[in-house]
């Protein structure tokens, strides 16, 4: 028997299964052929197009849209994928509203950009639905390269290296590849097991094998990898989660948002996934929105995002904020957690209003409490378990423009490396570019 919004505590089945399935359907349904044609016709084929410059992987967007216009989505997909092998996922998860679509000249002209993301999905879905893989491998170079971490950066690097004729072994500590595409990111952005299907499709290039279950510090060492392989690419992501540093954050119900999202992504039946009646998410980025919206979609009655700065400073785009509010999530700004209260399990969170002075956040002293049987911490992740000897920049592995670390023969990219935003598309670009640099280095 289903529970309801009002059922107290942290329980599963707050909504009927069918309603939950509807809630977690595609955020942006795929275009039909006709819709794609109408949308593609809006592209002006700009010179030195701003959208292309805004794309971290520099996809030739006017070119691929023109290929869609002329009835050739497969060619469009090849134009996309040769720059971004995870173009299918990026079409789903890229914050296009702050990248290509933000600078689309039709955004300037009409406040309504060409829907580049959805067009990219139309092209890549069309191609991926066909048999076979669109790229082939160059003659074998005899070189072997280790990739650590099967997230977007690692997969992009592995694919490009395999294409260039190298043999690649990916080491992934989890039992599934995909990284945040598989374990992070809201489910409604990657429906029908897309992340896993995309990995399978990518691996069709050949020359890549994956070893699951071992990671750096857990069966692997950088020295060992360096000895066994001609080059090493690290794409280990950010395994640590920043703590609230507030009393009570270890109570039952207070947990990391990424863990909740991962559990949700891996759940075989969402109606069996428990969620609280009252959920408070601490943070202001995409992870906070993903956790909050999905809590609401599971049937939580009250979901609040509490962010310590003002709306304009929020990491989540305006589109994501609007998505959250449209689903019934309440956004609170200039509040920070002081303590999680409850007798063993969390029942309330105490928040304090903040003020910003010279960019620094401090409490005003005025506090209040919100009911919260679940508190999701989404205030950022940090590098964890990185090998000794690598220079850091800030709290990330220091790399140059080509992805080279301070250790010869070792490259890094994705969220674990310095430079770029922590986005799937950025990770793909970094993986790809490191692969190209590894190739040049090895082949002289």
């Amino acid at each position, binding site marked *: 028997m289903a529970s309801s919004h009002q059922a107290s505590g942290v329980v599963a089945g707050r909504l009927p299964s069918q309603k939950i399935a509807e809630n977690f359907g595609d955020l942006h349904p795929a275009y039909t052929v006709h819709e794609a044609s109408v949308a593609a*016709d*809006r592209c*002006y*084929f*700009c*010179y030195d197009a*701003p959208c292309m410059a805004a794309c971290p992987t520099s996809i030739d967007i006017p070119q691929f849209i023109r290929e869609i216009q002329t009835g050739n989505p497969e060619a469009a997909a090849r134009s996309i994928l040769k720059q971004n092998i995870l173009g299918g996922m990026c079409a789903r998860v890229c914050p296009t509203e702050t990248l290509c679509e933000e600078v689309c000249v039709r955004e300037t*002209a009409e406040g309504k950009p060409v829907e580049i993301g959805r067009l990219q999905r139309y092209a890549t879905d069309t191609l991926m639905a066909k048999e076979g893989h669109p790229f082939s491998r160059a003659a074998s170079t005899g070189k072997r390269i280790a990739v650590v971490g099967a997230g977007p950066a690692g997969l992009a690097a592995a694919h490009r290296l395999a294409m260039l004729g190298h043999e690649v072994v990916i080491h992934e500590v989890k039992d599934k590849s995909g990284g945040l595409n598989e374990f992070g990111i809201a489910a409604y952005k990657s429906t029908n097991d897309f992340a896993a299907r995309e990995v399978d499709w990518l691996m069709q290039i050949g020359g890549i094998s994956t070893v699951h279950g071992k990671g750096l510090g857990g069966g692997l060492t950088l020295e060992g990898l360096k000895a066994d392989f001609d080059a090493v690419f690290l794409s280990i992501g950010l395994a640590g989660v920043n703590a609230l540093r507030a009393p009570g954050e270890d109570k039952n119900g207070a947990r990391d948002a990424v863990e909740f999202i991962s559990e949700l992504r891996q759940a075989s039946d969402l109606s069996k996934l428990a969620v609280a009646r009252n959920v408070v998410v601490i943070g202001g980025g995409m992870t906070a929105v993903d956790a909050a919206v999905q809590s609401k979609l599971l049937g939580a009655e009250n979901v609040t995002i509490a962010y310590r700065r003002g709306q304009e400073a929020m990491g989540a785009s305006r589109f994501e904020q609007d998505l959250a509010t449209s689903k019934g999530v309440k956004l609170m700004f200039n509040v920070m957690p002081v303590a999680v209260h409850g007798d063993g399990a969390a029942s309330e969170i105490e928040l304090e209003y903040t003020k910003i002075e010279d960019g620094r956040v401090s409490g005003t002293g005025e506090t209040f409490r919100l009911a919260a049987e679940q508190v999701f911490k989404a205030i950022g992740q940090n590098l964890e378990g990185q090998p000794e000897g690598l220079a850091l920049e800030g709290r990330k592995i220091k790399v140059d423009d080509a992805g080279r670390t301070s250790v010869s023969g070792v490259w890094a990219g994705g969220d674990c490396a310095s430079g770029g935003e922590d986005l799937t598309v950025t990770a793909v670009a970094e993986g790809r570019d490191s692969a190209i640099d590894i190739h040049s280095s090895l082949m002289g």
Partner: protein
Amino acid sequence: MADLTTEFLGIKSPNPFWLASAPPTDKEYNVRRAFEAGWGGVVWKTLGEEGPPVVNVNGPRYGAIFGADRRLLGLNNIELITDRPLEVNLEEITRVKKDYPDHAIIVSLMVPCEEQAWKDILPKVEATGADGIELNFGCPHGMAERGMGSAVGQVPEYIQMVTEWCKKYYSKPVIVKLTPNITDIRQPARAAKNGGADAVSLINTINSIVSVDLDIMAPNPTIGDKGTHGGYCGPAVKPIAMNMVAEIARDPETHGLPISAIGGVTTWRDAAEFISLGAGNVQVCTAAMTYGFKVVEEMISGLSQWMDEKGHSSIADFMGQAVPNVTDWQYLNLNYVAKAVISQDDCIKCGRCFAACEDTSHQAIEMSADRVFTVKDDECVACNLCVNVCPVEDCITLEQVAPGQLDERTGDVVSEDYANWTTHPNNPSATAAE
């Protein structure tokens, strides 16, 4: 409110919008509905001689080309003249004319190029009470293979001969419909006039292959595994039609000959343009076939609105007003100098002007690192390509360099005198300026 009532060859109609001879005017049912919808007149779909009617193909008759968002820009057809019995058409015409005395009904005709054939059919047409006839010397497909349609329209002597027969056996106005599938439209127009035609109508459709099916390697529309050339019409042909109308309007031999203009009329503006080039009314087909009879409402309201704004109280007020301004290239003023100007407020920074100018014109647009586009006056020849490729209307305009100002491209001060090629020193046949 402007008066759209039109009198063309003495035939009155409530407005200048007639439906051209084509599928929309093939039968009583359509024509009654067209009049109710607001059309001022119709040219009934072409009748052939008595006897077994022509037959049409039983596969596709139309093919099309499209612009963005599948907007139909050009239509081609391989349909023939009416495939209904002559008697049925004549009875229907008689009935409809009786019920709509204030609307124009013209009967389009196409019979063999023999005097007897015309002598036989014309009295029957006269008996319907229709307001006039239009001689179909235009259809480029099917009937032309049988020595009719454009096969006649391409031979001025035949045009004159048949027109003379019609004037002999028919008392009401005779309009000769011209084919554009010729090299000089003035020749058939002159022949029609010499034959005694009361008016010409143009253009009929243009011979065309509209597309090729690359799977079966045959032109569209494809009948089984073969296709044939068809007649092309719709918005895409309007520029060709307008030039031909203007050529006839400004030819001293045919100047003043009434013209019923046809060719891609889709909006009120199209009609106003044709009328300004000397047409007395317009005939419409593709727009009605694309959008239905209702489109005439916009044509009527739009033309009225524009005429009111311009202070025209009747069609005659602006008819032919643009004709004196259509001239030959050699008379264009070479001392008129203009430069493109880009409005930075309106620019959306797509860069199409830059690509067009840099790659295909005069390298006269500068692009800054932050995508500001500006015209280099010392390179700009005022070709207008940037204006045409800019997606924002009026963002780029051509502004005249006033006489007395410096043309930075040539280094010369712009002269206020008119000077054309006929007197230009580079012209080997130049005549000294007076």
